[in-house]
């Protein structure tokens, strides 16, 4: 017989017992009143009503309590394990309880269910989110890593494994710095950023360009852009996420300078370096041993080689103008110093042709905002032209002064053949040279074109005045440094970066 049947049986027995007790009580009452006392029928009836009332009150109360016991115990058991119920004690199962076995059975089932729920809860709570099987993260074609609070890798997607040529097991759980051997071009490296973010932010993002990565067993480094996202309060403990955008091919090409122009410039510069080196030796060793004519030729050879260097730079820079790569860094400079440097450098060349360069620089000029190397090229180009086109005249005059508009105006005047009116309008165009000058002097026709681009990027203006037979005057303006101040406020460093279209300095640190 199963527990339920036994319980029903027990209940039936108890009900029968209660009915028997009730009847016995009434019978006993009748017997006592009738036989022993011999009461009259009215009193007998009254006592029987009283007994009935008493048993109707007491017996149902007693049996209800007794029969409800199993329900109460099960109720207790359920409330005992219910999460939001008040402190209900565990049910106390006595052997005498009605339906003991059934209650035992049901209560044990309740507790079993509770423990199953608890186990499920615990398992869920302890379970790490399974990113490894996550379709989105794994099908992402770029390496993605997730780090915990201790910089250990919680997750690395399939692309990461391929990129690093390691298995997921070799990556996950490892410290990120042992997984990624990265080096940065900037001061703020990933680890510094992360430390800073942990100290001061809840959420932070950053992007690095040209991060280098050494992969074990590979000679060449990987190069990539790195995006990092930091969230201190991520509920799943995904504190930092890293995404790597591989740029090895593109940056590698940049580093190698394999653009055609860069390559050509490199190839041209090597023989020029050598020529200048050998000429240098001859000048050093033969100084004082050569007759003046030969020494003059040696000087000219040196100047020619120097001119070739400048020409190569011009070619490169024109290419840059064309490619919209103009970036000038304007610094505060003393204008008179720059002019003197250029005059000093071109003095020798002028002297060889018997030309003297006179300079009139107004006193107390304000400081200027210029890119020193580039502005040197402008002055150099103008002075070089003046020397080339001086013809039989022996004087060049440089003047610098503040003009009416408060700009620094500089002119380079020669007393040579001058420029025909018909071609003056085209002078600053690329490749333009007059038919006449082509026969007499060298040059590429790039110098004035570049000068115009550079002066334009400085915020100035360049022009020419010329009269045939009387010579030419080239002039340009540049801005005082104070006038650039507003622009400077917007910059985040001391340089004012100017980008119009395409000028990159040549990068000699050597101050000539």
């Amino acid at each position: 017989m199963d527990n339920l049947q036994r319980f029903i049986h027990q209940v039936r027995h108890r009900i029968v017992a209660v009915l028997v007790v009730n009847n016995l009580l009434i019978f006993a009452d009748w017997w006592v009143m009738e036989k022993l006392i011999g009461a009259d029928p009215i009193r007998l009836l009254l006592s029987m009503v009283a007994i009935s009332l008493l048993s109707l009150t007491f017996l149902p109360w007693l049996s209800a309590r007794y029969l409800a016991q199993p329900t109460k115990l099960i109720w207790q058991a359920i409330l005992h394990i219910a999460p939001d119920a008040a402190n209900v004690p565990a049910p106390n199962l006595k052997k005498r309880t009605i339906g003991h076995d059934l209650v035992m059975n049901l209560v044990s089932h309740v507790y079993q269910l509770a423990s199953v729920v608890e186990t499920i809860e615990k398992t869920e709570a302890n379970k790490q989110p399974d990113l490894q099987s996550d379709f989105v993260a794994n099908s992402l074609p770029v390496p993605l890593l997730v780090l915990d609070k201790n910089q250990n890798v919680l997750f690395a997607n399939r692309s990461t494994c391929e990129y690093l040529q390691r298995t997921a097991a070799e990556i996950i759980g490892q410290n990120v710095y042992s997984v990624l051997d990265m080096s940065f071009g900037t001061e703020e490296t990933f680890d510094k950023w992360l430390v800073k973010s942990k100290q001061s932010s809840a959420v932070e993002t950053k992007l690095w360009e040209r991060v280098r990565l050494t992969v074990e067993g590979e000679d060449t480094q990987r190069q990539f852009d790195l995006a990092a996202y930091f969230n201190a309060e991520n509920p799943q403990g995904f504190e930092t996420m890293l995404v790597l955008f591989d740029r090895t091919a593109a940056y590698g090409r940049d580093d190698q300078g394999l653009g055609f122009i860069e390559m050509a410039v490199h190839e041209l510069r090597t023989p020029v370096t050598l020529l200048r080196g050998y000429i240098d030796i001859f000048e050093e060793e033969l100084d004082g041993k050569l007759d003046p004519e030969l020494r003059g030729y040696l000087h000219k050879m040196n100047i020619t080689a120097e001119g070739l260097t400048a020409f190569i730079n011009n070619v490169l820079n024109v290419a840059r103008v064309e490619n919209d790569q103009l970036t000038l860094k304007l610094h505060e400079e003393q204008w008179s110093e720059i002019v003197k440097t250029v005059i000093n450098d071109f003095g020798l060349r002028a002297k060889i042709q018997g030309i003297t360069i006179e300079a009139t620089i107004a006193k107390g000029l304000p400081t200027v905002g210029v890119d020193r190397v580039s502005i040197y090229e402008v002055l150099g180009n103008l002075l070089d032209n003046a020397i080339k086109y001086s013809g039989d005249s022996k004087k060049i005059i440089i003047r610098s002064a503040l003009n009416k508009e408060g700009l620094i105006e500089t002119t380079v005047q020669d007393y040579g053949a001058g420029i025909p009116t018909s071609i003056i309008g085209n002078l600053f165009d690329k490749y333009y040279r007059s038919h006449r000058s082509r026969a007499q002097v060298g040059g590429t026709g790039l110098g004035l074109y570049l000068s115009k681009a550079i002066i334009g990027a400085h915020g100035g203006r360049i022009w020419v005045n010329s009269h045939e037979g009387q010579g030419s005057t080239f002039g340009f303006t540049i801005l005082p440094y104070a006038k650039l101040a507003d622009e400077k406020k917007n910059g985040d460093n001391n340089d004012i970066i100017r980008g119009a279209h395409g000028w990159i300095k040549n990068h000699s640190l050597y101050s000539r």
Partner: protein
Amino acid sequence: MDPQDTPNTNRRVLIVEDEHFISELYVRALTKAGYEVTTEVDGARGLALAQTDKFDIILLDLMVPTMTGIDVLHHLRGPGAPALRAKIVITTNLEQREETRDNIEKQADAYLVKAEITPRELVQFLGTIR
């Protein structure tokens, strides 16, 4: 002047340069000025030499075999690299894009375009970067 009397005596220079004629010119000028010069054509071997920390100046070309000058520089001056006493002077004829050059200049002590200086000017310049 006797090289022994020059202020550059015992200053050691490492030239990492694969163009033989150029390093020949530099060796001549530097030796005359009293420097003790070591040359290396290979980037990786140049790095190994530089890491011995026996040099006062390292002239580093960027386009050298097996390991580029940029990588050599990065190993010498990148994050975590041990400090070297040598000054590193990049000597190159390669034009760099602005940002690459900025990064190089942050790690190197100087950046020279070889075509723009003569060997004697190089010596003069090295004298200024003690």
